[in-house]
């Protein structure tokens, strides 16, 4: 089973929920797909085993064969190639690696070469397996790295995925093919507004989901009203407590210091399993 943990708004506690759930359930592989700002490892202090570079394919134009006809630039939807009569310019950050330019070139002057965008990192905490991606600073394209992280998904494992923030392409790529998505929010107007946008995305993708309300007690009750009206199950509430905030600030998963929460996260996971199996 693959369970993604997502949130439209940042800082609502996605990583906390993903990590605490991963530590409370057995046979878990945790994937951190927030490759722009991977944080799960900061809470887990894993033993790291290996690192693998991740590449994308980009065009390499052979100047000897190139006639500067401009067909490649005309084809490229991302404006990554600029051709003038005496020179070609390639902007690697804009390239989506579609391979279209190699097809468009009438002289077979373009081949593809590898370009590094980040790395995959592998670690363990006890029997918990952690895989995360780390985008190189300055690289704009998170999606190919997210695909690389997800290619590591193991069969017959409880896979928990920490998703990036927002609702655009990196999030879509992350939650795609998940069996369930946990939406973490907080009971504030920003939390509710961003939750509604995320709900729309998941409905469009036909992925079942439920809500975890973090920092309950702050803000107002409109998140609860919305979930009731929309028939969205509230799977868990995590109250705003100084102790939880303080443990988080030190990078300690609170279920380790507050064992009653380990059980609650186990219950959360069984509830998700039940919903998925229905």
């Amino acid at each position, binding site marked *: 089973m693959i369970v993604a943990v997502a949130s439209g708004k940042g800082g609502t506690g996605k990583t906390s929920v993903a990590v605490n759930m991963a530590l409370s359930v057995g046979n878990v592989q945790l994937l951190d797909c927030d490759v722009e700002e991977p944080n799960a490892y900061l809470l887990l202090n894993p033993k790291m085993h290996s690192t693998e570079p991740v590449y994308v394919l980009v065009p390499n134009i052979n100047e000897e064969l190139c006639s500067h006809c401009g067909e490649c630039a005309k084809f490229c939807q991302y404006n990554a190639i600029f051709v003038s009569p005496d020179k070609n310019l390639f902007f690697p950050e804009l390239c989506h690696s*579609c*391979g279209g330019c190699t097809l468009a070139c009438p002289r077979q002057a373009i081949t593809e070469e590898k370009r590094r965008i980040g790395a995959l990192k592998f670690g363990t905490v006890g029997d918990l397996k952690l895989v995360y991606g780390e985008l190189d600073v300055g690289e*704009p*394209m998170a999606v190919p790295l997210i695909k690389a992280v997800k290619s590591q998904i193991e069969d017959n494992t409880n896979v928990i995925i920490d998703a990036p*923030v927002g*609702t655009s392409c990196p999030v*879509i790529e992350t939650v795609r093919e998940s069996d369930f998505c946990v939406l973490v929010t907080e009971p504030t107007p920003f939390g509710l507004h961003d939750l509604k946008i995320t709900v729309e*995305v998941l409905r469009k993708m036909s992925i079942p989901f439920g809500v975890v309300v973090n920092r309950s007690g702050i803000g107002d009750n409109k998140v609860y009203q919305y979930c009731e009206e929309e028939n969205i199950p509230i799977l868990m509430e995590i109250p705003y407590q100084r102790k939880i905030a303080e443990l988080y600030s030190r990078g300690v998963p609170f279920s380790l210091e507050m064992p009653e929460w380990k059980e609650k996260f186990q219950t959360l996971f069984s509830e998700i399993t039940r919903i998925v199996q229905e």
Partner: protein
Amino acid sequence: MKQLTILSGKGGTGKTTLTASLAVLARNAVLADCDVDAPDLHMLLHPELIKTQEFKGSKLAVIDKIKCDNCVVCREKCRFEAITEAIEVDPIACEGCGVCAAICPSDAITMIERVSGYAYISKTKYGYMAHALLSPGESNSGKLVTLVRQNARILSEKENSDLIIIDGPPGIGCPVIASLSGVDVSLVITEPTMSGIHDLQRALRLIKHFNVRSLVCVNMYDINKDNTNKILRFCEENGIKVVGRIPFNPKVTEAMVNGKTIIEYAPESNVAKEIEKIWKNCQVSFNLGNG
């Protein structure tokens, strides 16, 4: 005209709360909400909509089933796994590259423009505002950010405003880069948590990579003073000016629930006072605005 981008790396550290407060203090700045995935600035500034613009950020492949002879070449060549076994286009996966249309031997595929969201121009009590909303599940948020910034520049020229304040998205990827390119200053707001520190460092490296000057402020600095000190030390070692330390105060959430900035809701609060200081420091540091 100068441009200031508020960033954080980590989400939820108070970017929008700070941006809205600076908008109130700056007076006559043009505002740009570049968090186009989940824009929240309008909930504090209540803009009056003036103009809506369709955002056509990319194309979408459409297969003519009558012409298609199921040769599956398109499916084999698509790098985005956007063509299903039934030879249908998955609009969520399609990145509009046009490879399928170019190689289809039956000419069965055309590329159409897709509306991926909307850009808006609005007026608030504190100045004009450019904002947008990416349609759920669409891509190309970087391009939409660029459109919002273009709109903001046009507004600032028209209104004779000397400052654009940009509320940036979280992370360090394409929409963040689009929010950052060519600005004068980036103010990074962080929190004293392990994740906050880690994400701050990555955000600062990104800002440096694009040759933009950075300033830092620490939000809720009193929830972990050891970590706050770590941030202060890190900034000092790297020659980055810390323009303020905002204390934790539940009034910030109360203000949000009431749809107001903290400056309007609790002008005498310690948070409002500190943000006023941050604004003054920003002005001094980079001669922003004339206030």
